[in-house]
């Protein structure tokens, strides 16, 4: 019976009900889009890392997931790495940030190709000179680049000589020596990728390398790609928390306002229910159920809308951002929305529950 009253009350004010659901859905979409973007970007980086064809990754002691550092000596490869048993090939790359989550990567193309057979070009081909640049099709589509175009990056022009299939290493690559000169890191690299003749030996090689390269971060590819999670990137984690807090606040305020006006509008009805013997808990129960309905409907709509933002970000805008759908966060975003909405309903709910029956019945 209460559910019938709740549904009829919500149907009675369709505009208010719709607006509340939409406001809550925006909050849910906001959280899901942010988490989807973080996951999408990190997944893409992990996919590109796997595409390199390496079994082991070596990074300098001071590095973190998105902070590569420029301070590892390239000499490590001939002096240590190549001397290890089972090492089939190794290459060092220099990663230089050009913006948030955007990097330009310097590679030794000949060495790099030994790991994976080289880039699969869809247009053009390898570097011809020191000022050449290669980009993946995604980056080329996004910037409408074609082979032969001049590309300005790091305040200088580059000549685009090749466009390759995505999913390997990076979006923009230039010759290693040129990038080392430009960034004042001659002889330095950020990451070493090692390919073994038998991937099953990764554990042994990592142990052996670890003994020689104290404090360096040495990972198997699996461990390395596992690092690409939101929790490993402090900045993203903070950002996510801030967006969630804003989401909760928006949901709270919207539901507060909506329920507050509902309580004022229904003062007389609340008086009638009280005259019929409804307890304060009964009245509160009605309003909380209405709120729960709004929050659940808003969450479902929010989940649907996150597919719309994914389509917009991935297929319409063609930006450097990638959004994925993170199913695990559906429940989390919904719980956040429901908690925010319930908090918003508490004050109006208590106001209604405590209303004096006689005054409420006299309300015009």
């Amino acid at each position: 019976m209460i559910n019938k009253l709740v549904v009829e009350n919500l149907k009675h004010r369709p505009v208010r009900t719709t607006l509340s659901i939409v406001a809550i859905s925006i909050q849910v979409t906001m959280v899901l889009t942010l988490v989807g973007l973080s996951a999408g970007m990190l997944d893409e980086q992990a996919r590109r890392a796997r595409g390199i064809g390496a079994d082991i990754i070596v990074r300098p002691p001071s590095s973190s997931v998105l902070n590569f550092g420029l301070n590892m000596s390239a000499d490590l490869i001939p002096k240590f790495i190549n001397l290890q048993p089972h090492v089939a090939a190794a290459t060092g790359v220099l990663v230089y940030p050009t913006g948030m989550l955007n990097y330009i990567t310097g590679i030794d193309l000949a060495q790099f190709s030994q790991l994976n057979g080289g880039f699969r070009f869809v247009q053009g081909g390898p570097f011809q000179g020191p000022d050449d640049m290669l980009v993946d099709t995604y980056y080329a589509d996004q910037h409408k680049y074609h082979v032969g175009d001049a590309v300005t990056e790091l305040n200088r022009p580059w000549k685009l000589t090749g466009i390759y299939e995505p999913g390997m290493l990076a979006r923009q690559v230039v010759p290693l020596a040129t990038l080392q000169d430009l960034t004042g890191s001659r002889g330095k690299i950020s990451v070493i990728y090692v390919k073994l003749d038998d991937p099953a030996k990764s554990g042994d090689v990592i142990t052996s390398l670890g003994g020689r390269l104290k404090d360096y971060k040495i990972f198997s590819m699996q461990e390395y790609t596992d690092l690409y999670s939101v929790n490993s990137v402090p900045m993203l984690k903070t950002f996510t928390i801030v967006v969630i807090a804003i989401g909760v606040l928006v949901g709270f305020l919207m539901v507060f306002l909506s329920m507050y006006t509902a309580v004022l509008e229904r003062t007389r009805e609340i008086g009638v229910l009280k005259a019929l013997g409804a307890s304060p808990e009964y009245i509160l129960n009605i309003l909380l159920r209405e709120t729960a309905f709004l929050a659940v409907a808003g969450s479902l709509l929010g989940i649907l809308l996150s597919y719309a933002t994914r389509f917009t970000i991935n297929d319409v805008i063609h930006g450097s951002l990638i959004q994925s759908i993170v199913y695990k966060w559906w429940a989390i975003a919904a719980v956040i929305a429901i908690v925010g909405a319930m908090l918003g309903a508490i004050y109006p709910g208590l106001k209604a529950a405590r209303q004096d029956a006689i005054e409420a019945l006299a309300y015009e």
Partner: protein
Amino acid sequence: MSDAPIISIRDLRKTYQAGEVDVHALRGVNLDVERGEFVSIVGPSGSGKSTLFHIVGGLTPPTAGSILLDGHDLLGLTDAQRTELRKTTVGFVFQKYNLLPTLTARDNIEIARHIAHKDGPPDPKFAEILKLLGLTGRLDHKPRALSGGEQQRVAIARAIVNHPAILLADEPTGNLDTENSTAVLGLLRDLNQRLGQTILMITHNPEAAAYGHRIVRMRDGRIE
């Protein structure tokens, strides 16, 4: 049941504050209402009729005196106890019908049963009452689709669905035309005669008051 009055009021007083002024709304009311009696209370505005109605209905506590309602002493009841009393012991009919606008007539009656924790099917006798009230074909309409007279009949059905010891009616014909007023008053008298329903009715209208067995006049917070 004993032959004791269903309502027994002795030296009932109610003082409330309006701003910084004490208003003595009831100044020592004495009244007995017998089981099955239909009593009309008349009196000018400010005579204390409504306050008496609210106290008997358990909507507000008295300040002093004694009031026994179907064996319950209303003085000193907590809010929760008065809420419990309203569920089953009293039924209200208001001047402005006060139906919930979002629910159908049937659900307006049902919700009173739900609040009183009576969720099973209504007893067969109630179907007869609905027939008596002329509501059988109108139960699936919402209040806005019902005439004033029909709304008031739904409100009466709602008030008696839980078989209250006493039906309290506050100007039940105040918003109705003569024809509907006569019909509603006739129904109240029928309920009283056929079911033995005790009724306490407040009214300004002497013709309406005449439907009761007895007319009680109030003035200045006392019964004349």
